[in-house]
Each structure stands twice: as C-alpha cells, then as structure tokens.
C-alpha cells in the first residue's frame, strides 16, 4: 500500500526507540509508584498540616509542564550542581517524581475510599494499625486505585515522548530522525502512533474492565 524507502535497519532503529520508551516508562513507573505509595500514606497519616510541604512539592510536579521539569532538572543537575548525569538518568529521575506526584494522589484517594466503619470493625477485633493497613486497607484501596494507576502508567508512557529534550532518543524522536532522512512524515508518524496505541489501548481497556468489575461489589 505504501511505497516506502524504509529498510529493515530503519525498522530496527525504530524498535530501539520503542525499547527506550518502554524501559524509561518501566523504571519511572516502578520507582514512582513506590515513592508515591510512601508519600500517599505519609500524607494521609500525618494530617494536612504536617503534610503541607510535601503536598506543595508534589503539587508543583503536577502544575509545571513536564518539558520544563526536564529542562530545569537538566540545567540544575549539570550547570548548577555540576553532576554529570546521563540524559537517561535525568529522564528517569524526573519521570519518577512526576509519577510519584500523581500516584500519591491516587493512593490517598484509595485509602479514603475504605469506609471508616470497616476500619473501626477491624480495630475492634484487636488488629493493630499495621495489621489493619496491610490486611484491610491495602487490598481494598488497591481495588479503587488500580484503574487510575493503570491510567497513570499509560500517561507516563505517553509523556515519555518528551524526554527527547534531554537527548534521549525514544520512539517519537527516532521517528523524527527517520522523517528527516526519508521524508515520509505521514507514514512514519502512523507507525509511531500505532505503536503507542497498541500498547496503551489494551491496557486502558483492562483498566476500564477492572473498574467496572470492582465497582459492582
């Protein structure tokens, strides 16, 4: 259908870009989720006053464009602190904090969705705070939070397209490089879009399915 000059080498080149996209996403989502859970629990536990500084910092990560976060982190680490971090490290670092900022919100929402009365019932059976947290709150909060978390993970994957700005050649950047050489913008963009879609769509559907299933009981 398409008359294209695209070679196998070019496809491999694209695949490498896709691989970078996936690796950056996996690392950031894994670390960001761990941090986000910690932040979320801390925020819920210490109350709004003591959590205010943390809340503010997380809010900043949600209120400034990711591109600017990347540029600033890059400039700050390199220019100001004179740390020689690779672009890949900066990308993962910023995306981790970005993930954590959203994840903390999701975790807090999940915990708040567990009815106080259920937690009281657990405590009156003699369960300690920790036992209540691990045996009752976590499993129930996970149900509420998982669909949004899937959405977040997919969001991070899509937003990872912006790490080109710190010289990480991920999928979209690879596509642009090929467009430069081959001048087939539409065809190449379609391939790139299809890749994102094929990863994101099934997982998004899974999230929707879980949400529907778990909201029934």
């Amino acid at each position, binding site marked *: 259908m398409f008359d294209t000059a695209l070679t196998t080498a070019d496809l491999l080149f694209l695949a490498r870009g896709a691989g970078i996209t996936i690796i950056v996403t996996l690392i950031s989502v894994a670390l960001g989720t761990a941090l986000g859970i910690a932040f979320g629990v801390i925020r819920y536990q210490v109350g709004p006053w003591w959590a205010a500084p943390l809340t503010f910092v997380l809010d900043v990560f949600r209120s400034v464009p990711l591109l600017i976060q990347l540029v600033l982190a890059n400039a700050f680490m390199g220019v100001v602190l004179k740390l020689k971090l690779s672009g890949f490290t900066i990308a993962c670092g910023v995306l981790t904090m970005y993930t954590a900022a959203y994840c903390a919100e999701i975790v807090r929402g999940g915990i708040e969705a567990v*009815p106080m*009365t*259920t937690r*009281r*019932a*657990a*405590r*009156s*059976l*003699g*369960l*300690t705070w920790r*036992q209540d947290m691990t*045996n*009752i709150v976590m*499993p*129930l909060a996970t*149900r509420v939070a998982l669909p949004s978390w899937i959405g977040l993970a997919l969001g991070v994957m899509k937003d990872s397209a912006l790490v080109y700005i710190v010289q990480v050649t991920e999928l979209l950047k690879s596509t642009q490089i090929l467009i430069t050489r081959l001048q087939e913008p539409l065809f190449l963009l379609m391939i790139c879009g299809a890749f994102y879609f094929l990863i994101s769509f099934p997982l998004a559907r899974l999230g929707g399915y879980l949400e529907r299933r778990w909201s029934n*009981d």
Partner: protein
Amino acid sequence: MIEIENVHKSFGSLEVLKGIDLTVDKGEVLTVIGGSGSGKSTLLTCINGLEPINGGRIVVDGIEVHAKSTDLNKLRQKIGIVFQQFNAFPHLTVLENVTLAPRKVLGMSKAQAEEVAVKQLTHVGLGDKLGVYPTRMSGGQQQRMAIARALAMSPSYMLFDEVTSALDPMLVGEVLDTLRMLASEGMTMICVTHEMKFAREVSDRVAFFHKGVMAEIAPPAELFGAPKDPELQKFLAATH
C-alpha cells in the same frame, strides 16, 4: 464486669455523654434504648476504647480502658462489637473474614483458626457459606457473619449497636434469633436497639438514654410497664 463511672464525652463543643454511671455484671443482658443522637453508639465505642473520653473512667474486668498503660489491642479481644453497618471485609471470603483476627491477633495457626471459625459460623447458621464472598449474601447473613467474626475471638463481652437497623424487615428476625441464642447461652451483652419487643423479652435490664444522660434504668417489665421519666413515656408512646 464492665464498670462505667461518671463518663463524659464531647465531640468538639458538643457534649454527647454527660456523666454516665452504669455497671454491667457477668452474664447480664443490658438493652439500651433512646432517641437518635442520644449518645448510645458513642458509649459503646468508648467502652472498647475506639473513642477517647473526656472525664470519668471505664473499667473492664479490672482494667481501666483509657489508662495510658492499657494495651487496647489486647483489651479489644475481650470485647466483641458489632455495628449497624455490617462491615464485612468485602475482599475476603466468609471463612477468611472470621479467621483473620484469630490468626493475626491471637497468632492461631490456619487450621486452628478455621476450626474456631467453622464452629462459630455453624453456630450462627452460616456453616454452608464458608467460601462465599460477603457481597453475595443478604444483609442478615452478613450481619450474622459479623457476629461470628466477633465471637471467634472468644470475647467475654459482646456489644451490639443497632445490628438490625440497616436490615430489610424480612431479615431482622434471623439476626434477633442469633442474639437471643447468645443471651440464652449466658453471654454478657449490651444491645443498643430499636426493637422494643426484643428488648422486653431478652433483657435483664433496659436503660433509656436521652440527650447524653441515662434517664432511666430498670428491668423491662418495670421500665415498659411503668415508665417514670416523662421523656421515656413520650418515647414509648411514639414507638408503640
């Protein structure tokens, strides 16, 4: 024995318990009645230490509930409580709901805990529902499971807070029957309820709460037959 001495409790500026004095003996069944907001639920949650109190003291089997040195998690094992909302743990099967606390709190083995759980569940008539998730059961069944869950900790006292209020009228009977059974077995119980018929039949004494004060306490025949407190008279007139 539960001894409640001059207990005061406020939420912010709202005084909900205004000096309650009450003693419940071993084996006694005490029913608490009263209008909405009169402080009945609050009293129960103070007895097992879920809420702090602002004055007075509550002593359960010689242990002062709100003393700093008291291990509340330990004390609560002695005092089972069942609430109006069923509070089933929806992510666990019926059997797991009941075995959770014995395993985590009492450190029972799985087999031991299940033995206890099956016994209590059979007792409340749910012996055939072990693997079912609570959301698949009727409210009455969930409430009976909550009772079995509390009983599995072998408590010395059971507190019931309007356990039939959230139930479909059709299902009230089965839960009240379970309470009757417990009473007949000699369990020490405090039941907050709106079911006057039940209160009359089962209780040793009935207490009437009004605006944070225990306005009257007497054996059921006396309290229902010859109420002295004018508020109680009004209350009984409205509910009959």
